[in-house]
């Protein structure tokens, strides 16, 4: 039964963001619209992919309902910050409109690329960690921050191929991007674990070497193991609970970075909402044990 809907709800602007009341949030996805918005959940915030809300109608309506109850993080997947092509102004314009209406506390995208020439491949593709790539990425981050008039966070990727010749490690690359552009880092703990396994390096060393002052958000998700030719490759599938080893790594990260806003990501094979909330509770318990449950610095 459709209740009377005021279409102006979809056009009104929200007040400026405040810091979430507590640091752990979940991704709001279509199957959770009703449950998440009709129940009072012990959650600090919700995350969405802005690209799913560039249009109007139902999705915008539910995003409005979500923003009335929770702080919001807009986590982009379409800026293609690592492309040699400049970031699309049309895309930035739509993103900016959404930011102006929904007033998120965090805005982010990835250290990866998707667009080449006139094709946008809708995946987070890998970059070589060279000086040329760093300059390319930084130029696009700077363009984005100038266009949006705000700081963004940039997330470390999961990758399945690596380049033979790099000028620096991934954590050096991420630190430098933050130093050169003033952007923050969105540290995906599961991605670090996946990278360490797939490319044979030390996940703990990675976290120890990320500059603490850059980190503005952390992500946790489940990954899948795929056996091929007797070896295992880890794939960042976001379709199962966070694995034990990743929780250990998260605990280590919380000790180092403090109560940073943390997202539980789940993007396919959706479980019932209570399972997702239980994952969030687990993250919150770790934060309670190892850090002050107060977000230590103002994320923009």
């Amino acid at each position, binding site marked *: 039964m*459709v209740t009377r*809907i005021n*279409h*102006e709800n*979809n*056009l009104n602007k929200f007040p400026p963001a405040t810091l979430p009341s507590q640091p752990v949030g979940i991704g709001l996805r279509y199957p959770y619209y009703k449950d998440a918005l009709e129940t009072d959940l012990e959650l600090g915030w919700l995350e969405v992919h802005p*690209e*799913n809300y*560039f*249009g*109007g*109608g*139902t*999705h*915008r*309506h539910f995003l409005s309902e979500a923003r009335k109850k929770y702080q919001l993080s807009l986590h*982009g*997947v*379409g*800026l*293609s910050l690592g*492309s*040699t092509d400049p970031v*699309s102004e*049309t*895309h930035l314009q*739509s993103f900016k409109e959404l930011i102006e209406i929904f007033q998120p506390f965090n805005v982010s995208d990835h250290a990866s*690329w*998707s*667009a*080449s*020439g*006139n*094709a*946008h*491949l*809708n*995946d987070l*593709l890998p*970059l*070589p960690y*060279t000086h*040329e*790539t760093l300059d*390319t990425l930084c130029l696009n981050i700077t363009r984005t921050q100038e266009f949006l008039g705000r700081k963004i966070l940039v997330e470390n990727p999961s990758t*399945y*191929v*690596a*380049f*033979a*010749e790099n000028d620096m490690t991934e954590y050096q690359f991420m630190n430098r991007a933050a130093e050169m552009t003033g952007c923050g880092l969105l540290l995906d703990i599961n991605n670090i674990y996946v990278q360490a396994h797939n*490319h044979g390096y030390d996940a703990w060393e990675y976290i120890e070497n990320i500059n603490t002052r850059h980190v503005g958000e952390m992500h946790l998700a489940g990954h899948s193991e*795929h056996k*091929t*030719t*007797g*070896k295992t*490759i880890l*794939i960042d599938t976001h379709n199962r609970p966070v694995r034990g080893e990743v929780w250990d790594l998260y605990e280590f990260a919380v000790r180092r970075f403090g109560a940073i806003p943390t997202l539980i990501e789940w993007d396919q094979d959706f479980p019932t909402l209570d399972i997702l909330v239980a994952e969030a509770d687990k993250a919150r318990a770790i934060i309670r044990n190892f850090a002050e449950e107060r977000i230590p610095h103002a994320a923009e």
Partner: protein
Amino acid sequence: MRLNEIQTRFKGMMLAPETDDALADILETSDIPLTRRMDVYRNNVMSGLGNALSANFPLLEKLVGRDFLSSMVRAYIVAHPPTSGCLTFYGHDFDQFVADFSPAAHLPYLADMAKLEILGNQSYHAKDDEALSAQNLADIPADRLEELELKLRESVYLLQSPWPLHAIRAYCLDDKMNAPDIHSGGTCLLVHRLHFDVEIVEISVDEYKFLNALKAQPLGQAVVETLTTYPDFDFENTLQRCMKLQLFLKPGKN
């Protein structure tokens, strides 16, 4: 190799099954063969885009089956990869691809059914705006009505086809229905969104002409143009129906 070339070659490998030897040479070797590792990306790209696109065509899936739709979608993705990081309107020209897709040549109505689903998707995601209310219309002085620019809302689309799309759609939605006679004549359809739900309504050919005419000219001229071709056009009834469906944009806003 410069980053631009790396990305061009990588893109090539995503859309074609062959390995690019020059790209393979600059990637790190591993215990897991490169083809398997590149397949992770290929699967992400093709299944991500394929699922996004196929989800917009449930009626086509009913008509041709999942496998046939998937093969069309895959061929479309390779020929027309997305040009935007927002996939909401990806596949806006899929109907033209279907029209030229030779394995579907024996289904001449399929392209128009694809167009109907494309318009349904565009209406579902169209920007929010406000409808002209009965009161708004009543507030307009009678001597200004002729010059009134009565614009259709962003979520309103019109489609005319030589095929009975409405009957074919009804058949797709009801498993118990018998297949319609595809040679039973054409149809004019109105696609619009009311309370966030997309509705598809059959309209008469004169209503179709009138609503199309409104896109380019003021009310008075649109009525005259419609009456010239269809002398029996019932303007009052059409206007009432359009107001009930909230098709017109409230002027001066949005």
